[in-house]
């Protein structure tokens, strides 16, 4: 039987997400005297960048898979020394305004995959959304074959579970882990990091396949010069790949996966400037797995549910519109890290600390802590890294020609198994112009993942052939994580505040999917 929602103590601040941004924010706010609850779905803090094995795996050198591990251990120590409460294994599914008072109710389900019968409510005067990002995927023939995994996903499985994708069953006693051939493909700087980590952990990486060129960066020499750490990071990964003999193919993409029950090979084709595959350029590369991803998309479900305003990045994704203090358009709701735009770990740390300080100032009735040297330095760093993030989004923005590598039978929606042909038909024959209409007509995006995997692709296909459609609205998912009906029922009695409409959004979503 489900238990009723428990009444946890009231906090000054609830931080959602214990990645670099949330950790930095929680530590900063707690050290300035706020009572802080830090919630994360994972069983351990760290988020994507500092994801690491569970203690039982006994990693004596966890730093071997991370750059700058010491930053994380220092933050973790400060968190433990502070009064902040870490609530691990808490999957937040909604944030609503509490009745009458100036408080927020954060609702979470608990357990490894949210399975435990203990819904939790955390009350707080302010909320910091540090929910990070998820990977953007573009479909291609064969992308549903087992052994095709997200690039970040491969990285996450390696960092937490110490495994590689595409291993063959090994005879007893053989060394597990070594030898799988993993092609890394897609677009964005994460590919280099993933390839370097995979190679260092024993995978053979026959190729890294990047759809854009890196020359795009050269058009912004001043931004590059202002971000030497980013250049050094790329150089570090590049050197590691050279050492492992990994070939980098730019302006190319995996346009087909071969194999039916598991990956046997991929076809890599050259792309033109718009990412249209060049006919006859396909080369087959034998491999056991493909790690693929086309950059990251901010995870905004909780924020859009609250009505926070969004804006669009150069790559078409939606980000939260934040003021100089990291506050969203909804007073009392703040954000830091990838929710405000994809910028990487240093930016997330910087924004988290800025947000933590600003919230402490606000709740303490002081003006924003702007004048201090630390505040100024953080804001300068943020501006510099945001500029780099904008260049990155532009360089790796998906070209419109990618859909040419689809055939009509390619499943675009993995959950509902909806092929590209049916989505195009919905657009051409039935006039569907956006992802929501396509969803109603074809069920694409209606499955378990609520369109997280196919959202970009469906929106592109629906807009295909139109000169300039209206910009798509951010997807709205009323439930940020799956919730059982009994947990939903326990919400009764909580005033479900009218979230209002986010500025860019026309109408609320009426389907919860699933």
């Amino acid at each position: 039987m489900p238990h009723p929602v428990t009444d946890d103590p009231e906090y000054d601040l609830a931080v959602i997400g214990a990645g670099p941004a949330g950790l930095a924010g929680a530590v900063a706010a707690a050290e300035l005297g706020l009572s802080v609850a830090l919630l994360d779905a994972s069983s351990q803090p760290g988020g994507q960048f500092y994801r690491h094995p569970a203690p039982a795996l006994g990693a004596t050198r966890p730093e071997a898979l991370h750059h700058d591990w010491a930053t994380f251990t220092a933050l973790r120590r400060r968190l433990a020394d502070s009064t902040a409460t870490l609530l691990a294994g808490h999957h937040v599914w909604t944030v609503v305004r509490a009745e009458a008072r100036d408080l927020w109710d954060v609702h979470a389900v608990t357990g490894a995959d949210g399975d435990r019968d203990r819904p939790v409510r955390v009350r707080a005067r302010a909320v910091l959304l540090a929910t990070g990002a998820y990977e953007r995927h573009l479909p291609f023939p064969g992308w549903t074959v087992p052994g095709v995994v997200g690039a970040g996903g491969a990285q996450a499985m390696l960092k937490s579970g110490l495994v590689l994708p595409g291993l063959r069953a090994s005879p007893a006693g053989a060394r597990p882990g070594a030898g799988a051939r993993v092609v890394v493909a897609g677009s964005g700087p994460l590919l280099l990091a993933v390839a370097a980590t995979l190679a260092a952990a024993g995978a053979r990486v026959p190729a890294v396949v990047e759809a854009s060129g890196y020359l795009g960066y050269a058009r912004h020499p001043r931004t590059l010069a202002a971000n030497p750490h980013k250049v050094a990071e790329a150089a570090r990964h590049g050197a590691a790949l050279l050492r492992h003999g990994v070939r980098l193919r730019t302006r190319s993409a995996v346009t087909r996966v071969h194999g039916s029950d598991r990956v046997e090979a991929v076809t890599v084709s050259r792309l033109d400037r718009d990412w249209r595959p060049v006919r006859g350029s396909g080369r087959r590369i034998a491999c056991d797995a493909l790690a693929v991803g086309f950059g990251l998309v901010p995870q905004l479900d909780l924020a859009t549910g609250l009505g926070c305003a969004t804006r669009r990045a150069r790559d078409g994704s939606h980000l939260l519109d934040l003021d100089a203090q990291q506050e969203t358009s909804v007073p009392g709701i703040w954000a830091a890290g990838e929710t405000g735009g994809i910028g990487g770990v240093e930016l997330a740390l910087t924004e988290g600390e800025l947000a933590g300080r600003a919230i402490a100032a606000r709740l303490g009735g002081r003006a924003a802590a702007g004048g201090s040297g630390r505040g100024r330095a953080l804001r300068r760093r943020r501006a510099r890294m945001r500029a780099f993030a904008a260049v990155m989004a532009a360089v790796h923005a998906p070209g419109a020609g990618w859909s040419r590598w689809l055939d009509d039978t390619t499943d675009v929606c993995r959950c509902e198994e909806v092929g590209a042909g049916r989505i195009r038909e919905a657009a051409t024959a039935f006039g569907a112009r956006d992802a929501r209409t396509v969803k109603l007509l074809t069920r694409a995006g209606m499955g378990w993942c609520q369109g997280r995997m196919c959202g970009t692709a469906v929106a592109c296909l629906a807009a295909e052939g139109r000169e300039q459609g209206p910009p798509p609205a951010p997807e709205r998912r009323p439930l940020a994580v799956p919730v059982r009906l009994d947990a939903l029922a326990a919400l009764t009695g909580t005033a479900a505040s009218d979230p209002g409409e986010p500025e860019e959004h026309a109408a609320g979503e009426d389907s919860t999917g699933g």
Partner: protein
Amino acid sequence: MARDRSPAERVGAVPDPAFEITFDGRPLVALPGQSLAAALWAAGILAWRTTRVGGRPRGAFCGIGHCFDCLATVNGAPNRRACLVPARPGDAVTTQEGHGHAAPGDR
């Protein structure tokens, strides 16, 4: 950087004692602290679900709980995200078919 190391060697892992789980009745070795998906990958298994419409094999894709492609039936309970659920000694993982009715003889 040495070549052909395993991930565990790379981080100098000295794990707690390994234990047995089963996949469709077949015994596998899992390490404490690994998710079920990680244990299956380590054993060379990439698929543990078939889709509702096409009956196609699927396994872990996003690796972080977002895509639901890794749904497995664990000890008779369907629709568990194998990339999130930690492996425990004696766990019986069975291929989940379609909507996730547990395999016959599983309960």
